[in-house]
């Protein structure tokens, strides 16, 4: 193998790690808010991603039949819609279920598990049991051929850019906005937050809905790289929880770092080992580190 080839492969492998990082971070981000900040174990998180993916599919079908001329432009608009749709469903779920269970976090797991079963069956009944494939605009497909033998996937770059945008937005909102202040106050001390005039009930609902909305965006982005079907969400849910837990549940930065670490470990070990063994190795590493450092990479300063 020539030097050029090794150079190209190294670059592409580096990008493979980055794009897996983007995927893991994007799916972990919504959960980091819901699970990390609010302590709700949302087993239906994957299904909120699926809602986002189906939103893209429905909009692409509508665009294709009613406004074929807009096919190149609908995608960014559809992602916003995915956020809104998932936000609304998240709002409803919080109102109907979650708000009754804040005092019993482990019970949220059971209730949301039931919710995920119901949502999967709803997708199956309403949209159909088979997988679907939204038609993507041409500019999202294929690769950017930098030089001969060096291809950078465009969808990978798109997901990476979107992830950075969303992450930046969430960090900014959480640490610089009024809403973020209220969320952090509620997480730190609910009773005191209430006493200072923060409407914690409303804060909770908006926070949960935003977490679900971000899941919707993740699902929308994943239509470019993965499958869209009634059970697609279940492909992501465990990885999402691992990312958040590994990073230290209460820390958003922890989620970012852990997504990066897990992505690089898995991507590199997959390159040198077989796929299944790479997965086992990555998971073993995560569990071992979690055993040694149970609070995750970035611990919150509060010790319970």
């Amino acid at each position: 193998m020539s030097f050029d080839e090794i150079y190209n492969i190294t670059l592409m492998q580096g990008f493979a790690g980055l794009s897996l990082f983007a995927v893991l971070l994007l799916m972990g981000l919504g959960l980091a808010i819901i699970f990390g900040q609010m302590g709700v174990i949302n087993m239906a998180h994957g299904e909120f991603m699926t809602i986002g993916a189906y939103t893209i599919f429905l909009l692409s079908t509508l665009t294709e039949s009613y406004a074929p001329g807009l096919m190149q432009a609908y995608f960014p608009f559809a992602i916003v819609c995915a956020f809104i749709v998932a936000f609304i469903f998240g709002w409803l779920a919080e109102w109907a279920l979650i708000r009754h269970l804040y005092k019993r976090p482990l019970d949220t797991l059971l209730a949301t598990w039931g919710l995920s079963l119901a949502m999967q069956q709803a997708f199956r009944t309403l949209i159909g049991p088979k997988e679907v494939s939204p038609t993507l605009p041409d500019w999202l497909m294929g690769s950017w051929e930098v030089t001969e033998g060096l291809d950078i996937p465009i969808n990978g770059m798109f997901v990476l850019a979107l992830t950075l945008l969303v992450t930046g937005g969430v960090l900014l909102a959480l640490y610089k906005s009024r809403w973020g202040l209220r969320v952090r106050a509620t997480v730190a001390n609910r009773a005191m937050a209430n006493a200072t005039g923060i409407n914690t009930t409303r804060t909770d609902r908006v926070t949960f809905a935003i977490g679900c909305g971000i899941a919707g965006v993740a699902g929308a982005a994943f239509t470019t790289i993965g499958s869209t079907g009634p059970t697609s969400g279940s492909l992501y849910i465990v990885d999402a929880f691992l990312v958040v837990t590994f990073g230290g549940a209460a820390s958003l930065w922890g989620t970012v770092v852990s997504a990066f670490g897990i992505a690089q470990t898995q991507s590199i070990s997959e390159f040198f080992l077989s796929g299944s063994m790479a997965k086992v190795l990555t998971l073993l590493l995560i569990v071992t580190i979690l055993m040694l450092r149970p609070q995750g990479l970035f611990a919150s300063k509060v010790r319970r």
Partner: protein
Amino acid sequence: MDALKTWLDRSGLASIAILAVLLLVVFPLAMDSFRLNLVGKYLTYGFVAIGLVMLWGYGGVLSLGQGVFFGLGGYAMAMFLKLEASDPQSTAIQSTPGIPDFMDWNQLTALPLWWEPFNSFGFTLSAVVAVPVLLAFVISYAMFKRRVGGVYFAIITQAVALILTVLIIGQQGYTGGVNGMTDLKTLLGWDIRSDEAKTVLYFVTTALLLAAVLLCRWIQLSKLGTLLLAMRDKEDRVRFSGYDVSMFKVFAFCLAAALSAIGGALFTLQVGFMSPTLIGIVPSIEMVIFAAVGGRMSLVGAVYGALLVNFGKTYFSETFPDLWLFLMAALFIGVVMAFPNGLAGLYESHVKPWLARRKGGAAEAGGPPAGTPGEAGQQAAAPIASPGPSASPAAPHSTPAVAADPGLGLGTKVSSQSA
């Protein structure tokens, strides 16, 4: 007589006896061999559920990886049965006769060394319990010593379940992969596929399950049970009193693992195969749901929970093939939202006071006395249970020491109400 009744109420033996009658007499008489075998299969999940009552309800530690131990127990038993089913005559068609078929498909030409001990039934029986308990000890010792608890522990056990599944599927030459170990035929020459065998296995399962319930009840009533509860509610106080909290938790986790493993081994025997779909995250969460539906504080309730959820699954999916998932979802959500303590909690908070009121009214009107309200209530919990006296034969099993322990949880409430 009153003392005996009070004691019965407190120890919960009456409800256990009713469960025993239901499982040993009513079900076998009322059901054909196919349905009875199904119940037998559900009861193997009952082992996991009562393990979770000890671990989660009493110990306050939620594990989302009980499938791991269920699976390990089941796989240990399956390995023994698979070796017995793979004698050179019945595998003559393979390129290497005498080894399990999936090994042959994966180009193994000799039995791996670590399979050899599973030729021995004695070794297999000890491995069924020992291997899962050892793993449980390693996982929990490391974590509880570092005071990992709550949600973290749950997520880590979930990761363990995922690792084991990927590992078993990836090493299919040694484990059978996704297919699992299928086509298990005989146990020490005894055909486990016949109807008679399935009936015998049903009774074995039931007997072991009842024994396990009694054992757990005994632990609950002992000092250890008191400590577990105390630890769940105020861990630090127990620690400051000089107890090694982590070792109690390790014990509870190992106990739950051992029970799950026994359930797994019995599952293999009854169903005739073992597969990784019983290990992963989904079955592990379902197992938690059995305990939650039944009531995480009640051993007997957990068994009913396992029966009810699985019966619901079977019945709904046979009757409403298109809607059954919605019904299951409604069941889970409904239980969590409306009855956080499950069926047992529902019974405690609604059925029992209602029965007590009725009883009170009847007594005033001069109706014939028919046992204490507590007893009557417990019969109502099991719709087709036989009359009260069945509870008394169970009494002699007790020891005064157990009865002398302070009553906990359900027991105290009952006696105060009957007084």
